């Protein structure tokens, strides 16, 4: 007898048997509670909790103006509170130093005043690398202030990396506006 034919017959028999037995034969069941559709629902806990942070508390305009007034005629320079940076750079640009020096002078003079320095980047590169780059920029301002006599406890540094752009768009003009350190007065008196 032809072997190939024999196997073909067996094969056909297997098909018809499997066909008949379909859905009646008890096959092994997946173990409960462990795998696939029987595992606990991922994210089945308290879903969708909402967090509403208070945000950073900044001085009222009146308090800030009163604080600025202590520098008299120099106070105009204090209106500059956003400082810009070059691509992937954290060195202070020469044109920002005038305003920075005036803020440093005010902070050294009024010891109770507190500022937050918030570093940001443009959208290029990765999220965590940009968190670090934004921090490096804010730290560059903090170091400048320290050197000018501002106490460490007067400054709080935080970086949002590329998470909080002020300008949308993927072009140099938007990127330029986003590579920044924002200075906010959080305690003024």
């Amino acid at each position, binding site marked *: 007898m032809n072997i190939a034919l024999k196997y073909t017959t067996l094969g056909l028999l297997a098909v018809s048997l499997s066909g008949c037995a379909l859905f009646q034969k008890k096959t092994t069941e997946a173990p409960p509670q462990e795998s*696939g559709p029987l595992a606990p629902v991922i994210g089945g806990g308290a879903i969708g909790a909402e967090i509403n942070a208070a945000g950073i508390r900044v001085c009222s305009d009146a308090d800030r103006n009163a604080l600025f007034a202590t520098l008299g005629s120099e106070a105009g320079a204090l209106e500059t509170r956003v400082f810009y940076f070059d691509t992937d750079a954290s060195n202070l640009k020469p044109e920002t130093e005038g305003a920075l020096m005036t803020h440093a002078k005010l902070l050294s003079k009024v010891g109770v005043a507190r500022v937050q320095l918030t570093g940001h980047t443009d959208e290029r590169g990765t*999220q965590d690398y940009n968190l670090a*780059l934004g921090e490096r920029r804010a730290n560059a301002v903090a170091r400048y202030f320290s050197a000018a006599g501002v106490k460490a406890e007067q400054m709080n*540094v935080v970086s949002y990396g590329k998470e909080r752009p002020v300008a*949308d768009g993927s072009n140099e003009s938007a990127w330029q506006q986003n590579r920044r350190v924002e200075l906010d007065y959080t305690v003024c008196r």
Partner: protein
Amino acid sequence: MSRLFAALLTCFMMLFNLPAQAALTIEITKGLTDVPVRPIAVMNFAGEAAAENLGQIIRNNLSRSGMFNMIDSDRLPAGIALTGPVNDEALNEMLADYLVRGETRREGDNVVFSYEVLKKSDGSKVLSNQFRAHHSRWRDAAHFISDAIYEHITGYKGIFSTRIAYVNAYRRDGVMRYRLELADIDGARRTVLLDSSEPIVSPSWSPDARRLAYISFESMQPQIVIHDLQTGKRQTITSFNGSNSAPAWSPDGRRLAMSLSKDGNPEIYVMDVATRALTRVTNHPAIDTEPRWSPDGQNLLFTSDRSGRAQIYQLNLSESQPRRISFGGVFNARADISQNQQFLALVHSSGDGRYRIGIMNMENRLFSTLTDNAMDDTPSFAPDSRLVVYSTKQGGGVGLRIESLDGRASWRIPAITGDLKSPAWSPLIR
């Protein structure tokens, strides 16, 4: 010898950059295309509880994978019915190599799912199974069945039951908000885990897929939080001065690598999750961040700009000196290593102003770009070492895309509102 050849090949291809790209991609992902694309027919499932289109979900899954050529059920020969015996002549006539049939039966609150896979060549039943699940889990059941079929036929791990965690940045009443979400890999079944007024960044899965670690700015400072997905309980595990970022779970689930700047500048630390004890593993005034564990737990890959711009470094944890492993281009960051340790996905810029996903073959060190976009970020490998999810800027917003290294599969996870970013592909959920 082969490494020398690879180096020569790379140089050669750099000279003739145009058609070489495709050839290089093939060289890098060699082996991945050895599995042929199979024609397969998946019939609708028989049974009263089958209202939810089990067959359709399985067809979508298999066809999305790029490993199957889907043969419509209405092109099947007449002798093939939803249930009952299969006429073997009909089986031989069908255009598909495989036939999938199934049935569901309601049993109280549960549904009994059964399915079988028949092979055309010899008519044998190559796979059959029956299981019971709550009636609300029909979609899980469809993914579970897809995984089994996919694994059996292709030899790859089935990843249809896995999920993707990501952050949805959206506007509510004109103000930005950030939702930490999970979705199936086709974007279905969005689950909101958290909805915060402050940014959430870099979720990382624990290897048992029960917890996520991520950065939350809810205290107006970055903190690393561990979120238990079963209970919804959240625990802040770091809130040091400076940055607390880039958490990455170790393969044994006991440690978290992270980047902290508490000592002045960002360094890589390893935390024992149970005791919170920290070990600092880098020491350099440059930025060190985005650590990723090799699947064997022996090495950390991380991003550092110690050479001037961001590049990828590898640190063997039994040694102290990391070595640079990325050289091409001006920016390489946020590496993710595939489960089979064969590939590295990273964010790459050649200097042309674009940030694309690149793939490095860890064996021959050949490098190729996977994507052709302008602004990609956060590549994350699926546990099959074949698919990669990443974020990309598209049409004014940021969304998620998935590509396979062999170029056969590519799809988008649509956003309902706002941007989708920081994707992290879950481990196998078993």
